[in-house]
């Protein structure tokens, strides 16, 4: 059971900045800059970070929804970045994505059954006679009612729409599902329903999740391994327990302490970060975090810290532990 379902090596994704009449490239936005990680089968890998740190780009690039600049992504022993479009096609059923906003990710002109079944028919997964039963089955496993099959997305609430999105992803029997902020647009009570559904589906079908979110409490709840991103790189990665107990990187510490606790008596000593996240088009020299870091040293401003293992799979990139 310890096999890796996906291995990402040195993934880079640069978006060129074009300017002038000739649209010459004058620079790059380094959305994802040298990221490596792997996810084991039936595990949930949590990816946390602020908006603009490149977490969504990772999710989209490893599915090749956007083309990578450099790196490798190995699924099922094949480097999917090296495959041709036609070779990629059968692999598409192995990996699916659920988007953040259930209001804009469903076609308003398609009935629910069609939305869920489109890919099933495209890949010829079930015979024509079983088709409707199959879709109803998938819908029921996502706690949708069979009579919803002929309705249109506008007739559903946000939580139900997100269930439709999950059903659509499940319909092709994938191994890996990228969940790109699946609960951020939902209310608290609906959030809990969706998270429970995801956990249940994972236990039943042995799914692997890449869970992208900015909400640490949700990530802590659902994931086994957590990676913290800042400006296109992973700054810390460890198992959930390890990361939340022995937080190493100052950025992860600040992120953790910024989460409001629903208890009026706890007055936390907050690490409040100054300033904003710098522009990824022009990241700071040395350690990218040094402009906002409360423990910034001289060497942080010039030297890029090494991203290495500090024992038991706890990776971190910070000079503080490297003296």
């Amino acid at each position: 059971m310890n096999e890796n379902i996906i291995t990402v090596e040195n993934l880079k994704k640069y978006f060129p900045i074009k300017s002038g009449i000739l649209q010459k490239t004058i620079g790059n936005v380094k959305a994802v800059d040298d990221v490596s990680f792997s996810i084991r089968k039936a595990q949930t890998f949590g990816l946390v970070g602020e908006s603009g740190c490149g977490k969504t780009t990772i999710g989209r690039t490893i599915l090749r929804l956007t083309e990578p600049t450099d790196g490798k992504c190995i699924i099922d022993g094949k480097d999917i970045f090296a495959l041709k479009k036609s070779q990629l096609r059968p692999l598409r059923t192995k990996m699916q994505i659920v988007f953040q906003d259930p209001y804009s990710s469903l076609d308003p002109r398609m009935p629910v059954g069609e939305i869920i079944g489109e890919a099933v028919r495209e890949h010829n997964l079930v015979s024509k006679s079983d088709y409707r039963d199959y879709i109803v089955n998938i819908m029921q496993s996502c706690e949708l009612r069979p009579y919803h099959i002929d309705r249109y997305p506008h007739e559903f609430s946000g939580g139900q729409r997100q269930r439709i999105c999950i059903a659509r992803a499940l319909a092709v029997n994938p191994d890996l599902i990228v969940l790109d902020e699946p609960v951020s647009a939902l209310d608290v009570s609906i959030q809990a329903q969706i998270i429970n559904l995801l956990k249940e589906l994972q236990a039943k079908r042995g799914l692997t999740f890449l869970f992208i979110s900015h909400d640490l409490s949700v990530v802590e709840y659902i994931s086994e391994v957590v990676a913290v991103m800042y400006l296109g790189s992973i700054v810390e990665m460890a198992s959930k327990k390890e990361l939340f107990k022995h937080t190493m990187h100052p950025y992860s510490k600040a992120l953790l302490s910024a989460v409001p606790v629903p208890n009026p008596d706890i007055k936390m000593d907050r690490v409040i970060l100054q300033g904003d996240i710098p522009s990824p088009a022009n990241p700071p020299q040395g350690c990218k975090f040094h402009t906002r870091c409360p423990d910034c040293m001289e060497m942080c401003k010039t030297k890029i810290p090494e991203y290495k293992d500090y024992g038991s799979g706890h990776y971190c990139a910070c000079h503080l532990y490297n003296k």
Partner: protein
Amino acid sequence: MGDKKNNTARLREIKRFNNKKYREHTKLSRRKNIEPSQYLTEMKSPDSILEIENLCTYFYTDVGTVKAVDGVTFNVPKGKTVGVVGESGCGKSVMSLSVMRLLQEPQGQIASGEIRFRQSSENRAVNIPNLPLKEMQKIRGNEISMIFQEPMTTLNPVFSIGAQLDESILLHNKGISKKDAAKRSIEMLELVGIARAEGIYKGYPHELSGGMRQRVVIAMALSCNPEIIIADEPTTALDVTIQAQILDLLRDLKNKINASIILITHDLGVVAEMADFVVVMYAGRIVEQGTASDIFHNPQHPYTVGLMKSRPTSHGQQEKLYSIPGSVPNPTDLPDFCYFKNRCEFCMDICGQKYPPLYKLSNTHKAACYLCKDEKSKFEGGVFSE
């Protein structure tokens, strides 16, 4: 066919009713020479600055009347923060828009109720729903100001930040020169922690990040020294680290200018950090209200308890998250009994009868649930001691 006919007749009925309501409203709002006696009032409690009593705000839509706010009563004491919590569609934003008289009229109207505001500049108390527009404009943005949810859309992209800040200062301070207004704007930008305020003063909104824009919006809200700040989800669109900055700033500023804050949010964590008093709303009504420690340590309404339990917490590992089954009832067709009945796990026979009144549990704590009728705590010690 019969069904369709009935439906058309019903829709026509609604249309007729709505038109009547619109006409009434237009007539009311076009009145001239309103006597002060019609809007002057007395405050019921000496410490409060704003008292909302039995506020009902209805929207007359084509599919029926939506009771967005239906009988909400609470006080805002001077210098305190009141947190209003609830899920989307529970009427918390409409409540705040009613206070500012910014509803989309005539579809949305304050149907009944009083909003009493102590206008200390004129040394009087006024009833906001009855105020003539001229008087309301003196209060809006000046004595009561609002911070909206989306800093991306609140600012006008074609005017410089400075022009937008100056506008409210020039409007509300008669006889102030443009130079002085600019000076005050820059002061305000410095107050909310913007470095190089003069550069930002000349800049445009698109040059700023979300957190900086929200600071500008806060500066704008504070520029006339308001007595009440209504913050409608001020941090929802922001990242956690920026949220921490903004909350810290709001807390700091509240102490500096001694204003009251009405904080509207769906995030229980934010409320716990900021609020002295908490109001929990569900489907347009208050289901529970009390001090922050009442609500967080001793929640009584099953909805409040459900909300708290459904949040994944960092303390302890739950196997399965608690989730409230079902979803919010349809706002055009609310039942006579408790709106939470169909989602409630403590539902009793009595719940199918009348909507429960707010039962008083202590001097500060009230809950609208029949479970609280005999004053016995059903959730002893609150959710966090489990």
